[in-house]
């Protein structure tokens, strides 16, 4: 028993930055997006770290990271991500702004996955983020799964346990703060990960060096993704309302501060 784990995940602007949506010549965009530092989408990060952990514990398993994003930024982010988990990069060159149709993105990712030469589809676990810091829904991973003919799909996954008989127990978040445990007899399956249970791994330079063997060639060979944008239109883009008020209080009690915050939240 072994798994071929394909993680779909790309970059997003570092969430610490102030993002400003604008309408550019090709539609909505983020102002100065290429100037802003980028990170691996945190939701995809959870999926990648879970994949790496699973592959470490199940002999002969392998992890691919399939990423659609601007090559230069992908390269930069990979230098941070590559030290954390062992994977083979498959890159497609294209925007990662969050203003691309999930349908188009799913098609491009599917094409990239189908191009992986030594991927055994019977052993395949398709991982991705249940949410995305730029796209907001787990629609992409669901559509990639559908395109690849994977019928067993799970969203909001927090835990995957491989049993002795090869079956898998999957813990999914469902409505009302509850969990659903499902038992899956075998791969293939698609999983949109919630936060998982693993901390971000430390930087391991040896892992980084091993990953570099695939990263630079993958980036150099990355083909432009075919994103048609047909049938997709962004009607409106706006920043969430941000309220910020700063005041210095020197002698206020904790209770009074708490009460004021509650009142402020209630508006």
């Amino acid at each position, binding site marked *: 028993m072994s798994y071929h784990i394909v993680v779909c995940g790309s970059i997003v602007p570092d969430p610490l930055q102030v993002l400003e949506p604008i309408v550019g010549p090709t539609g909505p965009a983020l102002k100065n997006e290429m100037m802003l530092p980028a990170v691996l989408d945190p939701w995809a990060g959870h999926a990648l770290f879970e994949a790496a952990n699973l592959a470490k514990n199940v002999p002969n398993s392998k992890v691919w990271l399939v990423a659609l994003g601007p090559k230069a930024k992908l390269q930069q982010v990979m*230098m941070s991500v590559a030290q954390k988990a062992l994977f083979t990069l498959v890159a497609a060159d294209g925007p990662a702004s969050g203003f691309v149709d999930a349908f188009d993105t799913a098609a491009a990712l599917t094409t990239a996955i189908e191009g992986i030469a030594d991927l055994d589809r019977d052993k395949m676990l398709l991982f991705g983020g249940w949410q995305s810091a730029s796209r907001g829904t787990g629609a992409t991973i669901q559509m990639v799964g559908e395109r690849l003919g994977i019928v067993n799909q799970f969203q909001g996954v927090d835990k995957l346990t491989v049993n002795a008989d090869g079956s898998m127990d999957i813990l999914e978040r469902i409505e009302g703060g509850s969990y659903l445990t499902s038992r899956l007899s075998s791969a293939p399956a698609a999983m949109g990960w919630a936060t998982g249970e693993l901390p971000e791994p*430390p930087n391991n330079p040896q892992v980084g060096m091993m990953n570099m063997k695939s990263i630079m060639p993958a980036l150099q060979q990355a083909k432009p993704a075919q994103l048609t944008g047909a049938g997709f239109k962004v009607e409106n883009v706006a920043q969430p309302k941000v309220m910020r008020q700063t005041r210095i209080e020197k002698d206020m009690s904790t209770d009074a501060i708490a009460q004021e915050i509650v009142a402020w939240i209630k508006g």
Partner: protein
Amino acid sequence: MSDQQPEVERMSMEADIVCVGYGPATAGFLTTLGRALMNEDGTPIADSASMPGMPPQVICYERADDIGFGVSGIVTKGRGIRQSFPDLDLSQVPMACEVTEEKIAYLYDPYGASRKSMGMKLMETALLPFKKGETLSAELPYIPPFLKKHPGMLLSMGQFMQWTGAEVMSQGLIQIWPGTPVAEPLIEGTRVAGVRLADQGVKKTGEPDTGFMPGMDMKARLTVVGDGPVGPIGRKLDQEFGLPRGKHQREWAVGMKMVVNLPEGCTLKPGTVLHTIGFPEPEIFGFLYVYPDNMASLGIFVPSWFDCPVRTSYRYLQHWMQHPYIWQHVKGGTMRSWGAKSLQESGRRGEPHLVGDGWARIGEGSGTTNVLTGSGVDEAWTSGVQLGQAVIGLLREGKNFTKDNLEASYVTTRRASWLEEEARIAEKSRDGFTKGTFRGLIGMALSGLTKGALNLPGDPKRPHERILTLEEYYQGKISGARIAEIKKATKPNGQTMHDALMDELGWPVINYDGSLLVSHQDALLLGGKVQANHGYADHVLFADAKKCSVCHSPVCAEVCSGQAITVNPDGPVPLFDREKCVHCGACMWNCTQAHPKDAEKTNVEFVAGSGGLHSAEN
């Protein structure tokens, strides 16, 4: 610190060249090296010793979480940079443009709160004919040639580093790993055999914790040290091998800056360079550089010869911004980014040993900053290029990276270049500042106009020897009894004293507007986006607690750029919160006490650590 820890089993890897710190010097080095590692026929110029059959393996480790997270607003003539990129199109580098206009302005104090010597008052009087009442400023009618930056360029350090990093890595021959603090050099006798990375999965104290991963040893034939003036590797080499006779590193400054969106309708044109003197204190210089798209970089420098024991860059920055000369342009603007950095201002006088067996120093930590022209980035870049060319030559000739070979190539080239020529002119140019700002300005003019032939002498003291007591500094302004009252009121609350003392002197209260004038903590969050990764040890340590107990003023906490060091209400040793640290290193030289083992250092140890700024616009 590692020498206090029990031996643990460490992983080890080998490369040919390992670099520490990705700043402008290392960028210059790697840009030069990367272009030449392969011959035109596709064969490597030399075989890797660590991976036979492959080109030389070159790895660079950077402490910050991304390669653009440094801080510096840059105006530079860019001679070295242009030589590396003859067809440089600044429009391809975000936030870059040509210098179009330069001004130096003297700022009069609107509040009468700053301390001015008789010399500075004389200077104010002499400039009265040029004074504009509405902006309380006098633009100097003449900018001496040594200060002129035109023709030159404005750059954002963060964006320039990102741009060069992408260029370097796209060749596929060099790896730059951010988020990887390097703890110490691997010293074997007189040789450096590589570096040791910082331990991960440790407690604040450095003891192993959950997920302990000992820092790996990265062995290399050549270790290139470009970790800047507060970098742990360069300073460890200085500690191990000492500085050359007659050299010392006693002149420092902390630069604090913001990148702002200028208000709509701002009339400043891209490429405008404003430098200011005189306010908020005579010792504090200011700058404002206008980028394209109505953005600007602005900030101040607080030097080690400003003897105030409660020097606070942040509050002074806010007063400087609100001076009418600056405020007319920035009022209504918004902070995009914020940060701080220590500058090693000894220049050539602080130059350490540049090479040894298996190692070479480049950049600011190697004494490249020109303290006369106020220029450092291009000089650092050039030193990296010079080392790059030397290493290419040695690789081609199959020679080892011995001290002699590096001396004959890199050091010889550096000594024969404009870098050395101009550094010699600048070497004594700032000595006058050690005896006062007015004398310093006269000294700079003398050195600059005579090309270093004439200099005003000074008395460079160690930073901890200069810092006055509160009573000495505020003599005649605030009584000892009042100072004692303020101390008594602030210490139990863990507060620093600078706000109360500045209020007492008549500095106006800062009225926050939530966009440009924000609290110090908001500057960390909104501007610097400061973070620290989990599982690393504290990197600011106090060498001897007894020294803290006799400290007359915790200037380390007063000056701390991120309010990461705070006054301890329950004891003498200040508290440190590494999640707020911007890694400026100002604490390292802002301390009233000498290090117990080395009088050239202070009681504050600044070692390898993780995290810091998360803005690439600085």
